[in-house]
């Protein structure tokens, strides 16, 4: 199916190029200063699995990467370092991984060296080879020799040849050059500072596979292909056609929609007894399956994610959705009925439950999430002295519905400004309780889900989804977020024209996510660095 989708994508991309006249040069960007980004936990784990095999275990805790305000966690990777305690964890994990790599079960796949007179040369060659994939750049002879010498010394101390290699290998894995993706620069033939080929390979790989560059990409870097449009496009298309793309797309949407918060989500078990562990575990997977099926396998219009009736279900989720699921275990495709109350991500429990309180729904939180996560329209932080007692009083005799309560809350002038951009759209989802189960009344009063999104009226959550689908901010937000995810930093003011143009191209491409990723991956903007002197340059 990926192959079919890839062929379809190529056709769409070609058509789009002709339609929008994208043969014109892309708007110039300033680029950002060369920097470094800490690998996310998933990138670290993916990298270890790709280098050493999926059965090598990574055991340890990763320091959290803070989500910048109104940004992606991915952007936080460029704004964070490693604390001493965090480095201890990395160091322990590195040595545990290295020990596994050099144990009897694994070492033959990594290294053929054995103790003896040929060992030094063999081990040096090993570190040169493995250093390339671990540090994502070639090691100098001096570096490889140093790692081999350290291995030799350690072997003498440990009295074990392989333990010595493992210790030196662990040192390499604990190196900041592995833990961080580093923008190494060079001067191109035109004298302009640019990312070197291996840094390009890393940037591309972490964007499209959420992991370290594979051998083919490193080979392309070695040949200089990535500095040529044709060679770069060939690698981009190869990665886009790979099943690894899904890993990256999942990471992106997890980040964009804040699905990572699901792990810490708690609901009041008395009010929502059905919110059991199995439900909670399946919740984000339902969202991600829906997304990947639509944007990758079906190569669908991104905006249709807010109107699609197609999703996936498990038996535990069936309890929340109130639907029978014939298959006892695993996932089954599912389609909401045409006359039902659900269509699109806004009506799926992950969005609804994540953006609710522990014991009640929240039009405000849902409206805020829709504004910030889907439309990229930041909502100001509330003042510290807000009196929430009215909206929290779900048993209020006079204000029986959430609409009544938030309307009363909005009567406060200090609250009205922000709430009027959140509550009216959040109330469109009020027929879903705090875990996303359907209800048509609250405290015996029929729930009114009518409202408007930026002037477009809707009467229920399905129509709200259609309004989101048609809102220009929806596509523009996706483009901005995808670029932020790719660069792992917020977009800069000097990139606005480029992003506006990219948004127009995204529309011309039929709002296809794969096509958008390709546009970014082959663009000059994606790899551009500001031409300041770089301290890393030339100091390998």
């Amino acid at each position: 199916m990926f192959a079919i989708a890839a062929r379809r994508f190529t056709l769409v991309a070609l058509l789009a190029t002709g339609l929008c006249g994208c043969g014109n040069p892309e708007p110039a960007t300033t680029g950002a200063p060369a920097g470094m980004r800490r690998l996310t936990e998933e990138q670290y784990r993916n990298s270890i699995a790709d280098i050493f095999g999926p059965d090598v275990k990574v055991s340890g805790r990763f320091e959290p990467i803070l989500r910048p305000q109104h940004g992606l966690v991915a952007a936080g990777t460029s704004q964070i370092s490693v604390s001493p305690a965090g480095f201890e964890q990395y160091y322990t994990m590195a040595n545990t991984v290295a020990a596994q790599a050099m144990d009897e079960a694994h070492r033959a796949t990594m290294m053929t060296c054995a103790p003896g007179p040929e060992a030094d040369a063999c081990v040096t060659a090993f570190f040169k080879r493995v250093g390339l994939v671990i540090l994502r750049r070639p090691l100098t002879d001096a570096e490889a020799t140093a790692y081999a010498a350290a291995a030799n010394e350690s072997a003498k101390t440990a009295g074990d040849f392989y333990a010595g290699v493992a210790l030196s290998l662990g040192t390499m894995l604990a190196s900041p050059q592995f833990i961080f993706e580093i923008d190494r620069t060079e001067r191109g033939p035109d004298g302009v500072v640019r990312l070197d080929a291996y840094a390009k390979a890393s940037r591309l790989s972490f964007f499209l596979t959420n992991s370290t560059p594979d051998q083919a990409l490193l080979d392309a870097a070695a040949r200089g292909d990535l500095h040529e449009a044709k060679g770069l496009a060939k690698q981009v298309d190869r990665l886009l056609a790979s099943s690894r793309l899904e890993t990256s797309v999942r990471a992106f949407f997890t980040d964009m929609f804040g699905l990572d918060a699901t792990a810490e989500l708690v609901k009041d078990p008395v009010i929502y007894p059905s919110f059991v562990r199995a439900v909670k575990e399946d919740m984000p997977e339902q969202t991600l399956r829906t997304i990947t099926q639509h944007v990758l396998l079906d190569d669908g219009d991104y905006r249709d994610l807010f109107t699609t009736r197609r999703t996936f279900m498990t038996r535990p989720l069936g309890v929340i959705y109130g639907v029978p699921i014939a298959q006892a275990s695993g996932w089954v495709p599912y389609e909401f009925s045409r006359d039902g109350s659900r269509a699109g991500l806004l009506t799926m429990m992950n969005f609804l439950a994540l953006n609710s309180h522990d014991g009640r729904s929240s039009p405000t939180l849902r409206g805020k999430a829709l504004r910030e996560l889907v439309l990229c329209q930041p909502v100001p932080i509330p003042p510290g002295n807000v009196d929430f007692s009215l909206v929290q009083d779900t048993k209020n005799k006079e204000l029986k519905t959430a609409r009544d309560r938030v309307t009363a809350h909005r009567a406060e002038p200090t609250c009205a400004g922000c709430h009027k951009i959140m509550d009216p759209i959040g109330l469109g989802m009020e027929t879903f309780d705090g875990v996303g189960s359907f209800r048509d009344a609250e405290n015996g009063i029929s729930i009114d889900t009518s409202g408007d999104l930026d002037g477009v009226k809707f009467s229920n959550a399905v129509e709200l989804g259609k309004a989101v689908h048609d809102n220009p901010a929806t596509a523009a937000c996706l483009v901005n977020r995808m670029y932020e995810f790719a660069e792992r930093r917020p977009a800069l003011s000097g990139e606005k024209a480029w992003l506006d143009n990219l948004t127009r191209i995204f529309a011309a491409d039929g709002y296809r996510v794969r096509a958008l990723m390709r546009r970014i991956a082959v663009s000059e903007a994606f790899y551009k660095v500001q031409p300041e002197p770089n301290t890393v340059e030339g100091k390998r």
Partner: protein
Amino acid sequence: MQGKTLGFLVTKFSPSVYYGENDCPDGLTPTTDEAFLLTQTPAERLRLLKPENALEFEKKWKTDYTTGPNGEDICRNPRSFLNDDRHPVHLTVKGAVSHGMNLDGTDDGRATARSCKHEKFRGPNGEPGIDNQLYRVMGCAKNWRGDPTNGSGMALKYNNYMKDGLHNYLIEIRGMKDPRNTEEVEVGIYSTEDKSMLDGAREHLRNQTFAVTKNPRWRNVTRGKIVDGVLTTEVIDTMYLDWFFALNGPFGAVNEHEFRQVHFRLSLETDGTLKGVMGAYDSIEVQSAQGRHGGKGVATNGNRDCASEYKSMAVYADGVPDPVTGQCTHISLSQDVEAVPAYIIHPEQQSTKVASAK
């Protein structure tokens, strides 16, 4: 059938216990050690109860008293104790009121073609002719009876089996035109191999999906009618349901209920649940096995005299006479039934795509 279909997961299916004030005027049925002591002279009882004779006492009641003349296990082979007078018939319920239904159609409990002569109860609302000999026999046994606050220990155990997924039952009402009054509905009572999900308080979740058992023997269908929100079914002559014990040996073979002359009376509650009772006869072999499936440990650690239990059920059995001996082989009972809404998938629907959701 035209009309609405409602599915339910049975969450309670355990013996009904009525707590009358003077149900057990003679006291509770002796436990195994107490029963053993009653076989001894008063002087010997006092001697055995002295601390220095604790080991001797324990050996006598845990070994001698619970072992047959040929080494039989009191719980695995209670039949061999039928003529052993050391194991008496239980103290029975003397109260006149019990939950249950009239199974034999008589008000006086006279013998019929399908029943042996027995004493009747009155229902809690005064209805005559209630058959519940199991309650009569077991209702004064400490563990079985429990107390009004905490309920029956045996019921708790039985209902926990369903929570643990050892066996689960489904009820489906088809053709319902009005939940208050429908002249005729079809009612399915099924086993399911699917396990139930529980919430944090170990209660069954509502709206789960369950597939009807693959074993046609454990699928039962009857008709019924709904009057004022109460469903009453026609009699099911024989109803088999899965009854699973993860046991080796002879009790592993006892893996199903064999209910006879089954009646249900279930109220459709406003919160969507079902509540009521099932009246039926059950084989005394199955009923007694439920209590003694753990072997001799039930008599020693559980302190239940399996021989007395079996003997009592045999004596008070009131249903399904043996055509040769005339001795009844089944005992009347009442099971409390509660059920929560669920989706039921029938075998022919297993691959059907279902597309309806709120």
